[in-house]
């Protein structure tokens, strides 16, 4: 009998071993695949278990976290949500993340390996660090000035610091409060549907994700290309340009809004925005060199990240001469984001150099210790420095006695360029009002800010007056806000 007791004891031992081996299988060898199973809610729960890190503007947080007391515990909150939505994006428990909430997610959610300096210890203790913070380059005053300037009209503003590429303002209007998308309640789904059905497309980030025909503001690029190429040697010498200008190879006559453009020197042609002169200049420069110049300013760049992606601005080089003429005055297939046009103004202001724009100054741990800094950004020479000097003069003239007088700021040197872009079938759509500019305090040696403003539903009559009348005052307020703040507290 004892033998048989031992046998059955052995059988029990076998059962025990089977349980242990199986436990090793499911807890170690298959654990990863179980953890990654989409039906396993643990990863989602862990993600919302602690407050999310914050996005900082001017040293203050524009985000927060709210303890909902539910299974997915912390929900995102925003202070001045609509104001910063084109920068923060949203962080939703249902619809994922966008913009800085998306690109900064590893830091904000606390999963970035740099947040846990001792990974082995953390693996052992299962401790997960607090989320880190993302510190932006935005200037609070400039951002607010741009938002209030647009005042709910469809449009966008982008402002950058020419010397560094730091983005100082990034506004899209009309905007939305990303807080309504944070949770996972039924109301969230309703908000999502409402925002997506809104004809004004409040979730579209017009400053970086929407391209517009830049219209006359593109003449900055054309003028710089003509000067660099030696097509124009003296801005005060008359150009050989008819008015109206017959587009090469066609019977279409290109007109101007005003008079006095025939054979106008570059200075006058720029100040009064003569389409005929610049169309012909573009043709004289040639498609290849126009394309190279546009590329140097940042057009046709599909890889720009600030750190979220920016819709590529386009300048078509596979064109005939008539198309090139139109492209050179910012029509045809030429399209630009507001951010791209701010880069054009910044290139003029920064001795011809374009700094790649960026939004994140640095990332920090939850305690504020710096993890990464933006560092020096890649630089491109868009035009020769001498050309940039001439372009600065041309743009100053626009503000002192051209179409952009609305942008003048007492005590500051301001250069700008207005634009009115026609669009739609037969140019039937409301014209877009543009203004690109830079401003330099009289006490300083370098312009501190370059800005581009676009207003979609400029309800006034067509003409360059529109850009100067609608968009220039917004640009002025933004530039003034930047010039008023001391250079250090931009971040």
């Amino acid at each position: 009998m004892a033998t048989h007791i031992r046998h059955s004891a052995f059988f029990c031992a076998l059962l025990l071993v089977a349980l242990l081996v199986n436990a090793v299988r499911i807890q170690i060898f298959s654990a990863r695949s179980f953890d990654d199973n989409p039906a396993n809610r643990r990863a989602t729960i862990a993600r919302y278990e602690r407050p999310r890190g914050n996005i900082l503007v001017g040293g203050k947080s524009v985000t927060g976290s709210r303890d909902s007391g539910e299974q997915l515990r912390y929900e995102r909150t925003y202070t001045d949500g609509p104001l910063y939505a084109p920068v923060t994006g949203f962080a939703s428990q249902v619809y994922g993340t966008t913009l800085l909430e998306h690109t900064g997610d590893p830091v904000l959610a606390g999963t970035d390996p740099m947040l846990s300096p001792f990974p082995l210890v953390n693996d052992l203790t299962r401790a997960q660090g607090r989320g880190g913070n993302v510190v932006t380059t935005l200037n609070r005053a400039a951002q607010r000035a741009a938002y209030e300037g647009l005042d709910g009209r469809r449009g966008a503003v982008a402002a950058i610091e020419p010397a560094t590429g730091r983005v100082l303002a990034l506004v899209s209007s009309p905007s939305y409060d990303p807080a309504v998308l944070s949770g996972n309640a039924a109301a969230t789904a309703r908000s999502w549907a409402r925002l997506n059905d809104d004809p004004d497309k409040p979730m579209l980030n017009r400053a970086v994700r929407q391209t517009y025909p830049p219209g006359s503001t593109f003449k900055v690029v054309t003028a710089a290309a003509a000067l660099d190429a030696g097509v124009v040697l003296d801005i005060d010498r008359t150009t050989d340009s008819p008015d109206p200008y017959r587009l090469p190879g066609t019977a279409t006559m290109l007109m101007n809004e005003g008079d006095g453009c025939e054979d106008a020197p570059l200075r006058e042609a720029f100040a009064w925005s003569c389409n005929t002169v610049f169309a012909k200049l573009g043709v004289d420069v040639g498609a290849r060199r126009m394309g190279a110049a546009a590329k140097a300013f940042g057009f046709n760049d599909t890889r720009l990240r600030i750190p979220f992606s920016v819709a590529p601005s386009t300048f078509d080089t596979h064109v005939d001469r008539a198309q090139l003429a139109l492209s050179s005055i910012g029509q045809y297939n030429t399209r630009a984001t507001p951010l791209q046009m701010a880069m054009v103004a910044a290139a003029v202001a920064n001795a011809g150099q374009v700094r790649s724009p960026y939004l994140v100054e640095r990332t920090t741990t939850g305690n504020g210790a710096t993890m990464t800094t933006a560092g020096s950004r890649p630089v491109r020479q868009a035009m020769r420095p001498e050309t940039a000097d001439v372009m600065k003069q041309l743009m100053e003239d626009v503000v002192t006695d051209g179409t952009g007088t609305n942008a003048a700021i007492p005590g500051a040197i301001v250069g700008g360029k207005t634009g009115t872009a026609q669009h739609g079938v037969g140019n039937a759509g409301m014209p877009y009002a543009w203004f690109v500019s830079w401003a330099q305090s009289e006490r300083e040696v370098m312009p501190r800010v370059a800005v581009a403003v676009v207003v979609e539903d400029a309800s006034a009559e067509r003409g360059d007056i529109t850009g100067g009348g609608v968009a220039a005052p917004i640009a002025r307020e933004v530039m003034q806000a930047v010039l008023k703040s001391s250079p250090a507290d931009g971040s």
Partner: protein
Amino acid sequence: MTNAGPTVAQAGIPDAPAPVTRLPRRRGIELALIVVAVLLCVYGYCAVGLARNGTVPPGAAGYGAGLGLLALLAHCAVRLRAPYADPLLLPIGVLLNGIGLVLIHRLDLETPHDHAAPAQLVWSTLGVTLFTVLVLMLRDYRVLQRYAYVSVVAALFLLALPILFPAVNGARIWVRVAGFSIQPGEFAKVLLAVFFAAYLAANRSALAYTGRQVWRFRKVQLPTGRVLGPILAVWLLSVGVLVLERDLGTSLLFFGLFVVLLYVATGRTGWIAVGLLLATAGAVAVGWLEPHVNSRVQDWLHPFATIEAGQGASQVAQSLFAFAAGGVLGTGLGLGHAVLIGFATKSDFILATAGEELGLAGLSALFLLYGLLVERGYRAGLALREPFGRLLAVGLASIVALQVFVIAGGVTGLIPLTGMAMPFLAQGGSSLVTNWAIVALLVRVSHSARRHYDGEVAP
């Protein structure tokens, strides 16, 4: 080792009569182990509070004092009436019961409207009281042999009782009286073990030495029709339980228990062959025909089928997720999400909480504790000389072993899931009280076994 007598002599243990030295009673060891067990449980209770609220929970002292008092009561009874008992049995019971209370308390935090820990504490008290009464009153376990047929009638009555009551969650195993729900099948386990042990002890010779050899196998000898009667009866009983009450786990347990005891009593491998054959036939037939059981088998074979079908994770899948989340060291008490399993998290699936929050380390420790409990039961059986005691000890230990395997294997995806309580850990008063009775009987049996060697007259 073939027979009991020479085995003992070979092992060097002095045979009766009277040894020169007295065997140590080891009650001090038991007390020390109980203290360790209680401290471990209090530590776990505090860990839950610290993890959830950052403070030591206010009930920690009360919980520790209560558990300690119960354990002390049981210890005194053992010291008084079963001084030679195995010193590991009681501490293992205390530790497992205490851990179960901690886990249930921890899961209560997730379900604010459904607190199970207070009731479990009451049942623990009842269980320990029953343990104390059994240790004190049952001077000689062999009197149980006399009540073999009373036991089996009582067991059958208890098994049949729930048929009169409505089914709960697909299984007809509960009796609801005045707000209390009792699973009479749990008590039937011990009664059946007593009956099997007594019946087999009395009839083992007849069962062992009749029968005909088949196919000229030297060892495999099929039993004759006459002695096949009882095993067929038990098999029918198991299937009856299964079909009428849809309780796959209990029927598996009864059948496994009977096969083990039959083998131990007769030493005939033929019984195992017949047992396996009948078990396979029954399992296949039921798995095929009975939809409730069939769905369990499907869940076992394809735990993620419901996810692929877009219906969300099944309970087995959620249980596997919980174990996987635990990894080697676990998330820590109070920090897991085993509550995602949903229904029966505190009872059938309690092991998933242990696996997730204590990790493979904690889970292995629990398995080894059960293993140790079973091993001590078998050891008591080996040390005894008379067949009833041997079969009773082996039977009781096998109940624990089979039950742990069936439910732990079920929630870890090793075998199809069958509803059953994890001994001592799971929420459920009937199971808890029954397990305390099992430990009490093992304490009695082990006491008799060792006292025998200490020169006193065998009881």
